[in-house]
Every structure is written in structure tokens, then in C-alpha cells.
């Protein structure tokens, strides 16, 4: 087996996939901004992506905030720096843990569901049926999911951030013996506009990536149940990788000075 041929084939395959994703993204974005727009479908997707993801995002956030306070206390108490815990909790939750963990949880829940739904529609010829009924599948299936995810994830992440900070507050006040009023004052004083803005920008990007990967892999699924299963797995894996990659890039843009 020629190693160079293998590397070359993998490289060309990677380029072809990148090209397909770029073309798919271009078409999808074009259909998001050009009429007709389907408000009913967008609202239904917002409910599915945002509202029904609240429990899983909320649970993830509250336990993350609680663990963060507990672990920070364990480390910082050695240096008598316990007073930094409110700052650590609010900054970590808002800048990184809130958006990234919410993004990963939503990728698992919503990205998989989108890929499975569109993938099933593909293999059962429902997408072909849409075309024969003079309905563009990008307009009817892809655009509403992209718009809904883009609009909903920031709201979801802001709620998750607040719940996470509240988790840290609960542990700090009820277990570690912090005074509630100074804890809250420190939290609010330390939080800056850039922290919240970076959280919202990250959430919007993650939302777009999750919906895009779900739609892309679902739309391209072939064959039968196995094809749909592969599409679902690929959607979650690729969305997760893109979330972590774009998280670094956005952090670099916001905070590396």
C-alpha cells in the first residue's frame, strides 16, 4: 500500500468535502435571506431547538457552576484566595463553559435530531416529493432550522450562563459559607460587556454550526437506516469539532490582546 497515495486520497477527499459544505452553506444562507420565509416553521423549530433544550442545558449549567465553585475553593483556599471564586465562576461560565457546554449538549440533542429527520426524509423520498410539489427543500427544511438555531442558541446560552452562576452561588453560600450579598456584588462587578458579548456571539455561531451540520449530513444521507444512522453520528461529531474549533477562534478574536 502506497502511503503517499493514501495521504493524497485523504487530502483530496477532505478538500472535496470542504467544497461540498461551502456550496451547501452558500445555498442555505441564500435561502435564509431570500423570500419566501416560513414563519410558522421557524417558530416550530425555535420551540424544538430552544425551549425543549432548556432542561438539558439548565441541568448541565447548574452542575457545572456548582462543581466550578467547589473545585476553585479547593485550589484557591491553599493560597487564601477564596474571594476570587465569584469572579472565576462568572467569567468561566460566561466566557467558556456556558456557551461550549450548551453548544455540545444541543449538538447531541438537536443536531442528531435534525440529521435523523432530514436523513429519513431523504431515504424515504420525502425530499423528492417536496421538489415535485414545487417546494424548494432548502427553503422548507434547511433555512427554518438555520434561522431558528441562530436566533435561539444565544437566548439559551444566556439562560444557561445565569443558571450556572446561580449554581456556583448556591454552593458558595450554602456549603462554603460565603456571604450572599458580597458574593453577588463581586459577581456583578467583575462581569464585563465583552464577556457577555463573546458568550452571545459564540452561541450564535454554535447554533448555526449545529443546524448546518445536521442539515448537511441529513440531506446527503443515502441508502437505508444505516445511512441515516451514519448521518446522525457525522452530524454530532462534526458539529462538536467545529464548536471547539470556532470557540478557540472567537476567544482569540475577543480576548487575545
Amino acid at each position: 500500500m502506497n502511503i503517499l497515495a493514501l495521504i493524497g486520497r485523504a487530502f483530496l477527499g477532505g478538500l472535496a468535502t470542504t467544497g461540498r459544505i461551502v456550496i451547501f452553506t452558500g445555498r442555505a444562507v441564500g435561502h435564509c435571506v431570500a423570500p419566501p420565509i416560513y414563519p410558522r416553521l421557524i417558530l416550530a423549530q425555535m420551540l424544538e431547538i430552544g425551549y425543549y433544550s432548556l432542561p438539558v442545558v439548565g441541568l448541565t449549567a447548574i452542575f457545572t457552576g456548582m462543581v466550578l465553585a467547589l473545585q476553585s475553593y479547593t485550589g484557591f483556599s491553599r493560597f487564601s484566595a477564596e474571594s476570587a471564586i465569584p469572579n472565576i465562576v462568572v467569567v468561566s461560565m460566561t466566557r467558556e463553559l456556558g456557551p461550549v457546554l450548551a453548544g455540545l449538549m444541543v449538538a447531541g440533542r438537536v443536531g442528531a435530531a435534525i440529521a435523523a429527520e432530514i436523513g429519513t426524509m431523504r431515504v424515504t423520498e420525502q425530499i423528492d416529493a417536496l421538489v415535485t410539489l414545487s417546494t424548494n427543500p432548502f427553503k422548507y427544511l434547511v433555512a427554518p432550522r438555520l434561522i431558528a438555531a441562530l436566533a435561539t442558541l444565544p437566548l439559551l446560552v444566556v439562560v444557561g450562563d445565569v443558571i450556572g452562576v446561580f449554581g456556583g452561588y448556591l454552593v458558595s453560600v450554602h456549603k462554603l459559607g460565603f456571604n450572599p450579598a458580597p458574593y453577588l456584588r463581586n459577581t456583578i462587578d467583575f462581569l464585563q460587556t465583552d464577556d457577555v458579548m463573546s458568550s452571545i456571539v459564540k452561541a450564535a455561531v454554535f447554533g448555526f454550526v449545529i443546524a448546518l451540520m445536521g442539515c448537511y449530513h441529513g440531506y446527503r444521507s443515502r441508502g437505508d437506516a444505516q445511512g441515516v444512522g451514519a448521518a446522525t453520528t457525522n452530524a454530532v461529531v462534526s458539529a462538536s469539532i467545529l464548536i471547539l474549533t470556532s470557540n478557540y477562534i472567537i476567544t482569540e478574536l475577543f480576548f487575545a490582546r
Partner: protein
Amino acid sequence: MTTAPNIRIRGLKKRFGDNVVLDGLDLDVGVGESVVVIGGSGTGKSVLLKCVLGLLTPDAGSIEIDGREAVGMGTREREEVLKKFGMLFQGSALFDSLTVWENVAFGLIQGHKMARPKAREIAHAKLAAVGLRADEVGLLGPAELSGGMQKRVALARAIAAEPEIIFFDEPTTGLDPIMADVINQLIVDCVRDLGATTLSITHDMASARKIANRIAMLYNGRIIWAGSVAEIDDSGNPYVDQFIHGRAEGPIAMAVRA
């Protein structure tokens, strides 16, 4: 036939990798005619329909629909042309997320921009035309229906916008012989009432004989025989004879392995 055909296909070619599926296929479907394309599994019957509908892009050849070249047509223009078409899919392809009446009314609401109440009224009438009571099945989901009922709903959806041209992709596959005959009769009745042109594909000879004016046989990517239903039993073509009698022996060698 003196009038120009609704669909005129010339030299249609389509391959997937090394697998040549259509190899210069020629076919005319006249106005008001009911043509059935027969052929074994995997001979490219569905590919033919999908090329005409623009779901697949042919490698070469010409497809004219009412005199307009459809190969290479833009998205908007194709959406307009597709408003002339109705399609019954092999697996029904009903939308899982919609109720039965919404499935039937889908093309009217999305494609023809009809108001929902009016579209619902028409959907109920079309359900009645295929022997289903809207008050019983209208609000059910497709998954709650039997295979035969799903086919009826798919037929109602295909005829809802009263299209000029209707395609039937294996309309009786997976149905018992009685239900298959019911669906065939519904197709004949609906097409007669609409005066539509139809192109069907099937390997069910009972279905072909019932719904066709003209039958064409697809083999090795080409139409190897075409004639009226009355002529098929005396076609003199050994491929057609083997196929219509379902014989294992003959010039058509079935691949045992994929």
C-alpha cells in the same frame, strides 16, 4: 398522433460510476396518453422518472416537456414546470410531520399559494375521490394508516392540483392483489376524470395491462419494444415474452449477485 407529445425524450444517458443505467433512451408520451414502462428491478425505470422531474441530472440527451427543454433548466423555471406534474412515489413518500389532509393539500398551499381553508376543502374532496373519508383519516398521521391507505393518500396528493401530467412509480408494490387492483382502478378513474397524461413504471404486468394505453419495455438502458396493450402478447420480442411471462429462462440474465 398529430399533436406534439407532452414529453419527448431523446438519447437520454445516465451512469453512476461505471454502472451505465440509461444508454441513449428515446421515448415519447403523447397528450392524454397513458404510457407504462416495464422492466426488471434495477433497469433504470425510476432513474428515468427522476431525470424527467429534474431530481437527477442526465449525463447526455434531451427531455422536452411541452416543447420546452428541461435538461439544464433553472430552479425557478423548473418549479413552474413541476406545477404541471403530479407524482405517486413507490413508498408513498407522505410527510411524517403532517396530517393526512395537510399532505394532500401540501402542493396547493406551498406550490400554488392557495389559502389553507380552500386547500383543505379540496383535500377532503380528493380523499373522497380515492375512497377515504376525510372525517375519519384527515387528522391522522401517515404512520397510523395501512399501506393501501397510504397509497390512496399519496394518489390523492398526486391529483390534488389537477396536474396535466402524472407519474406513477411502482404504484402497486407491496400491496396485496386485491388492494393492488383497487389502486389500479383508482388510477384509471382519476386519470380519466382529469384527462391527464401519465407515465408509469412497474414490473407488475397486471397493473401495466390495466392502466396503460401503450407499454414500453426498458432493457440495458434503452427502450427495446413499445406497443399497445393488445400487442404485447404477440410482440415477437423474446425479451418482452420472457418478462411478461416471468420466465427464469430466456435472453434476460438476472444477476444473482449485486
